[in-house]
C-alpha cells in the first residue's frame, strides 16, 4: 500500500538524511536529563514549599481554570451557532435540489462557498488561527475563543453537512409531496433526524476543545495556557505541575459532563 512507501520514506529521511536526534535517545545523558526534569516538576531542589502544596496558589490557578472553561464554552458557542446556521445549505442533497428544494444557481454557489470555508477553517490549526486573530483582537479569552470557534466551525459544519447527505430522504419527500414548503420540509423532515447527531458532534468536539484551550492560551489568550507559557519560560516547574493538575481536572470534568449530556441527547 502507498502508506507503507510513505512510512519508509519518512523514516529513512528522519533517520539518515535529517539529523532526527534518535541516536541521542540511547545515551544515558538524555535519560538523566529527563529524570531531572520530572524531579523538578515534583518539586525537587526548590526552596520553600512547592507551589502545588499552597492553598492560595491552588485558588489562583483555579480562577485561571475557570477562565479556560469559559473560553472553551464560548468557542463551542461560536462554532455551534455558526454551524447550525450554515450546515443545511452546505449539504449536497439540499443544495442541488435532490431533496425537492429548487436547484437554483445561488444555492449551488452557496454550497461551494460554504464547503470552501469549511475546508479552510478546518485545515488551518487553531494555534495558527489564534496567531492571526491577535492581530485584531486584544489578547484575552475572547481572542482564544474566536480562534477555537473558527477551527471547530469548519469541523462541525463538515460533519453535520455529511449527516444531512446520508439521511433517509423519504420523510422529507413525503412532506414535500403533501404540499409543504421548503422551510417546513427542512424543519420537520430533516432537522429532527440531523439534530441529535449534531449535538453528539458538539459534545465530542467540546472534549477536544478543552484540551486545546491551553494551546491557544500559549500565543494570546488568557487562562491556563498563558500562565503555563510564563512558568515554563521562567523555569518555575512546580507552578507548571500545579497548572497541569488543574488542566487534568478540567479534562476529566468535561469528559464526565459530556458522558452525562450524551445520555440526554440520545
Amino acid at each position, binding site marked *: 500500500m502507498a502508506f507503507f512507501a510513505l512510512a519508509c520514506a519518512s523514516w529513512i529521511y528522519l533517520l539518515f538524511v*535529517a539529523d532526527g536526534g534518535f541516536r541521542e535517545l540511547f545515551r544515558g545523558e538524555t535519560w538523566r536529563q529527563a529524570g531531572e*526534569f520530572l524531579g523538578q516538576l515534583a518539586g525537587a531542589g526548590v526552596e520553600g514549599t512547592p507551589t502545588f502544596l499552597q492553598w492560595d496558589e491552588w485558588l489562583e490557578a483555579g480562577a485561571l481554570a475557570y477562565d479556560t472553561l469559559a473560553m472553551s464554552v464560548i468557542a463551542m458557542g461560536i462554532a455551534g451557532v455558526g454551524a447550525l446556521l450554515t450546515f443545511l445549505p452546505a449539504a449536497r442533497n439540499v443544495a442541488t435540489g435532490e431533496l425537492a428544494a429548487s436547484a437554483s444557481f445561488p444555492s449551488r454557489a452557496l454550497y461551494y462557498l460554504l464547503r470552501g470555508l469549511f475546508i479552510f477553517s478546518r485545515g488551518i490549526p487553531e494555534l495558527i488561527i489564534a496567531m492571526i486573530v491577535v492581530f485584531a483582537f486584544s489578547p484575552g479569552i475572547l481572542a482564544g475563543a474566536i480562534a477555537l470557534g473558527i477551527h471547530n466551525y469548519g469541523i462541525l459544519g463538515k460533519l453535520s453537512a455529511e449527516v444531512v447527505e446520508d439521511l433517509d430522504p423519504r420523510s422529507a419527500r413525503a412532506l414535500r409531496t403533501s404540499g409543504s414548503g421548503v422551510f417546513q420540509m427542512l424543519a420537520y423532515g430533516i432537522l429532527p433526524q440531523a439534530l441529535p447527531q449534531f449535538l453528539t458532534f458538539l459534545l465530542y468536539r467540546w472534549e477536544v476543545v478543552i484540551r486545546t484551550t491551553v494551546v491557544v492560551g500559549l500565543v494570546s489568550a488568557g487562562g491556563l495556557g498563558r500562565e503555563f507559557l510564563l512558568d515554563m519560560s521562567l523555569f518555575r516547574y512546580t507552578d507548571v505541575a500545579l497548572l497541569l493538575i488543574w488542566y487534568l481536572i478540567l479534562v476529566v470534568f468535561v469528559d464526565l459532563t459530556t458522558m452525562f449530556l450524551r445520555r440526554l441527547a440520545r
Partner: protein
Amino acid sequence: MRPSTASTTSPQAAPEQSGGFFRGRGFLTLLLVAALLWSLTSLSWGSSPVHPGGLASIGQFFQAALRPELSAEFLTLTLSSAWKTVAYAVAGICLAVILGFPLGVLASGVLARRWASRIPGVAAFRFLLGCMRAVHELIWAWFFVAAVGLSPAAAIFALAIPYAGILGRIYADILNDVPNPPLQALRASGASETKVLLYGRLPMALPDMLSYTFYRFECAIRSAAIMGFVGVGGLGMQIQLSLSDLYFNEVWTLLYALVALVLLVDLWSSWVRRYLTS
C-alpha cells in the same frame, strides 16, 4: 411514555421518547444555552475587544490572500517544509500504532477470561491511556524540549504519545465490540484467549481499526504542523516566522500548502475508509 418522576410537563412540551423533560433533548438544549450565557458573563465587556488599527491589519492580511508569494525560491522552501511536516506526521502515527496497539489489547481485557483477573488490568491500562491523551501534543512537545532538548525525535514522540492514547482506547473499544458467536466457536474448539484474539478478534476488527487510524493520520498532519511553535521545523514554523515578519503573502502561500495537504490526506483517508468498510 414511561412514568416519569422528574417532570410534570405535558407530552406536547417534551416529545421525547423516554419519559420526562429532564431526561430529554429539550433539557439538553436548555443546559447548553445556559452554559453559553454563563460563559459570556466571564468576558470583560468594559474594554473594547478590538485593537485600535487592528482591523486594518486584518484587512491587509486578507488582501494578501489573493497575492500569495510565488517565487521559485519560496515555493521550494514551502515544498521542503511541507515534506518535513508529512514526515513527522507519518513517523508519529507509526510510533503511535506501535505503542497504542499493545496498550489497546491490554486495555480491552480480552486476554483474561475471568472477571477477577480482568478488571484491575483494564482499569489500569484505560487510566494510562487516558493520561496519555489528556495532555495535548504541544504540551508534550514542550516537556520533551525542556527535558531532553530540541530535535525532531522530540516532536515525533510528543505526537506519538497522545495519539497512542487515542488509538489505544479506540482499538480497545473495537476489540470489545467484535460479535461473540464466532469467538465462542473458537473457544469451544479449545483455543486459548490469545488464539481467540489472533484468529477471531483481530481479523474481524482490523478494517475498523485501520480506518480509524487513517482518520487520525489526517489530524496528525495538522498536529505536526503546529510543532513549529516549539521550534521544530515544518510548515508551522515557517508560518510563524513569516507572520512575525508581517510577510502576509508568504503566510498565505504556506497556508494554501497546508490546506492542500490536509485536503489531500482527507481524500486519501476517506477513499481508504470506503474501501475498507465496504
